[in-house]
C-alpha cells in the first residue's frame, strides 16, 4: 500500500531525509520511530501529498504522491503532529466540513459514525476550542477516519491523551490496522512495541533498522537471556545451572535470582528447568528477558538519548 524508494528531502542546504526505502502492506501497522528531528514528520508530509520530495518516489494506495497527488489524498487519512482544528467551530460542523470537502455521501451519518469510534458522540455540539487536549486529539483522529481511508498516517496519535484514552485509541488503531494500512510515528517505545507489527527506526534522515519488534530484539542481542528464581540459595543454583550444556554467562542477581544466556535459536529453558527441578529446587520463575526497545533504540541512534 505504501512503497517508498530513494526518498530524499532537502530544506535549503539541510537534508531532512536521505534516500529512504521501505514499504508497508495492507493490514499492517508500521511504527515510525526516531528522535526529534529525525525526519518522521517530513516523510509523513510527503506521503500525504502535503509537500513533494526533492528526489525519489513514493507510491501510496497505488498512486504516485507527486503525479497523482489528489488521488493519493482521497485515499489517505492523516493526523498531523499539531492537530489541525478550527477552534471557533462546533465539533460536528468541523467534521461535516471536512466530509464535504471529501465528497462523502450521507455525511451526517458518517460524522456520527466517526465520532462514535473515537468516543466523542456526546460532545458533538460543543465548540472545539472548549475541548480538552485529549478530546481535541480525538477530533483530529475522527477527521482522519471520516472517509474510511485505505491508508492511515498518524503523527504521534496518542500524545496528550490520558492513560485510559491511550489504551482506547491504541485499541482503535489496532482494529483499523487489521484491514487497512497504518503508518504511525511515535517516540514512545513501548507503544511501538505493543501496537506495531513492524518498526522502522529512523535517525538523521536515514532508516537504521527495519524489522518486527521481536526480530529486532533477537537480532541485536544475538542471544536470549533468561532469569531463574527458586526457593533457596542463588549461588548453589548458579553452579547447578552451569552444568547445562550451552549455557553461558551465568550471573547471580542481588534479589536472589540467577540470570543466564544462550545462543538465540536453540531454546535451553526446558533443559534448565529439568536440571533445576532434578537438583531438588522449587522452581518459582523462569522468565525470558527481552532486550527492551529502549536499549535497541539507544544503540542504533548512537546513544544520543543518553547525553
Amino acid at each position, binding site marked *: 500500500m505504501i512503497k517508498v524508494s530513494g526518498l530524499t528531502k532537502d530544506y535549503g542546504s539541510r537534508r531532512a531525509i536521505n534516500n529512504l526505502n521501505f514499504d508497508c502492506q495492507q493490514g499492517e501497522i508500521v511504527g515510525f520511530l526516531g528522535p526529534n528531528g529525525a525526519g518522521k514528520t517530513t516523510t509523513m508530509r510527503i506521503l500525504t501529498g502535503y509537500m513533494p520530495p526533492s528526489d525519489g518516489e513514493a507510491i501510496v494506495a497505488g498512486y504516485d504522491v507527486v503525479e497523482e497527488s489528489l488521488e493519493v489524498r482521497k485515499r489517505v487519512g492523516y493526523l498531523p503532529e499539531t492537530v489541525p482544528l478550527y477552534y471557533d*467551530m462546533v465539533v460536528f460542523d468541523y467534521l461535516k466540513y471536512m466530509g464535504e470537502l471529501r465528497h462523502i455521501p450521507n455525511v451526517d451519518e458518517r460524522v456520527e459514525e466517526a465520532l462514535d469510534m473515537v468516543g466523542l458522540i456526546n460532545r458533538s455540539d460543543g465548540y472545539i476550542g472548549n475541548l480538552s487536549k485529549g478530546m481535541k486529539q480525538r477530533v483530529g483522529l475522527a477527521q482522519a477516519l471520516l472517509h474510511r481511508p485505505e491508508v492511515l498516517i498518524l503523527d504521534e496519535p496518542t500524545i496528550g491523551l490520558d492513560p485510559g484514552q491511550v489504551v482506547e485509541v491504541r485499541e482503535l488503531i489496532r482494529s483499523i490496522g487489521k484491514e487497512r494500512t497504518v503508518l504511525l510515528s511515535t517516540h514512545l517505545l513501548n507503544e511501538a512495541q505493543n501496537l506495531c507489527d513492524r518498526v522502522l527506526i529512523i535517525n538523521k534522515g536515514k532508516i537504521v533498522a527495519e524489522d518486527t519488534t521481536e526480530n529486532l530484539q533477537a537480532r541485536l542481542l544475538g542471544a536470549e537471556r533468561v532469569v531463574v528464581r527458586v526457593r533457596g540459595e542463588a549461588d548453589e543454583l548458579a553452579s547447578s545451572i552451569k552444568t547445562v550444556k550451552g549455557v553461558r554467562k551465568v550471573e547471580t542477581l542481588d534479589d536472589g535470582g540467577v540470570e543466564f544466556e544462550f545462543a538465540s535459536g536453540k531454546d535451553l529453558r526446558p533443559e534448565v528447568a529439568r536440571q533445576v527441578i532434578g537438583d531438588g529446587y522449587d522452581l518459582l520463575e523462569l522468565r525470558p528477558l527481552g532486550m527492551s526497545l529502549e536499549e535497541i533504540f539507544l544503540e542504533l541512534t548512537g546513544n544520543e538519548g543518553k547525553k
Partner: protein
Amino acid sequence: MKNIWTIAKREYDNYFNGPLAYVVMLAVLLPMGIYFSLILFYSSQQAMFGGGAAPSAQPINGLFVFLMVFLSPALTMRLLSDEARMGTLELLLTAPVRDSELVIGKWLGAMLFILFVLLITLVYPLVLNNFVEPGIDWLAVISSYIGLILVCGTMLAIGVGVSAIFTNQFASFFVTLGIIFFLYFMIGLPAGLLPQGGEVFNYLSIQNPYDQMNAGTMTLGGIAYYLSLISLGLFTGTTAIEIRRWR
C-alpha cells in the same frame, strides 16, 4: 467546483462566528445611512425652495467603495494567514482539494459577505425611488452595483493573494491596505502632473473605471482591468500556496 463552494460557504459562516462581520457592517452601514439621510435632507430643503437636482443613489455607493479600501484588508487578512499559523493549512493541503480551488473558495467566501452587505444597501435606492418623480434611473443603479461588485472583488482578490504569502495576519492587513491604497488613490496622480502622456496612469487606477460605472457608463476596458486584477490576485495566492509546499 463543489470544493470551491464548500470552502466559500464555511468562510462566509465564519465571518458571523466572530465580531468581524458585525464590525465591518457597522463601519459601512452607519456612515452610509448618515450620508444618505443628509442627502435626502439637503435635497428636500432645496426642493422646498423650488431648486436643486433630484437626489441619486450614486454618491452613497462611492462612499461604500471608499470605506472598502480600508475595510476589505480586514476581511481578507486572516483567510489564509490564519490557516498557516494554526496549522489547519496542512489539513486543507492534504485534503483532495486543488490549491486553486482553496484560494478561489476563500475569495468567494469574502465575496459572499460583501454581496450580503451590498444587498442591504439596496434599501437606499429603493427608498429614494419613492421620493423622486418619476422614479430613479434603475439602469444607472445596476451599472453602479456591477461596478461595486467588480471593484470589491478586485480588492478582495488582492487581499487573498497577499494573505497566502504571509503567516502573520497583521502583515497581510497592512500590505493589502498599502497596495489597495496605492492603486486607488495614488497611481492616477501622475496623470494630472505630467505635461503629456500622463493619461496612461488614469487607466491603472482602480478608482476611475468604478467612477465611470457609478455615473452610468460601463467601459469594456474597465471591466477587463478589474477581471484581470482579480485573476492576478487569485493566481498570486495559488502560486504562494504552491511555493509553501515546495519550501
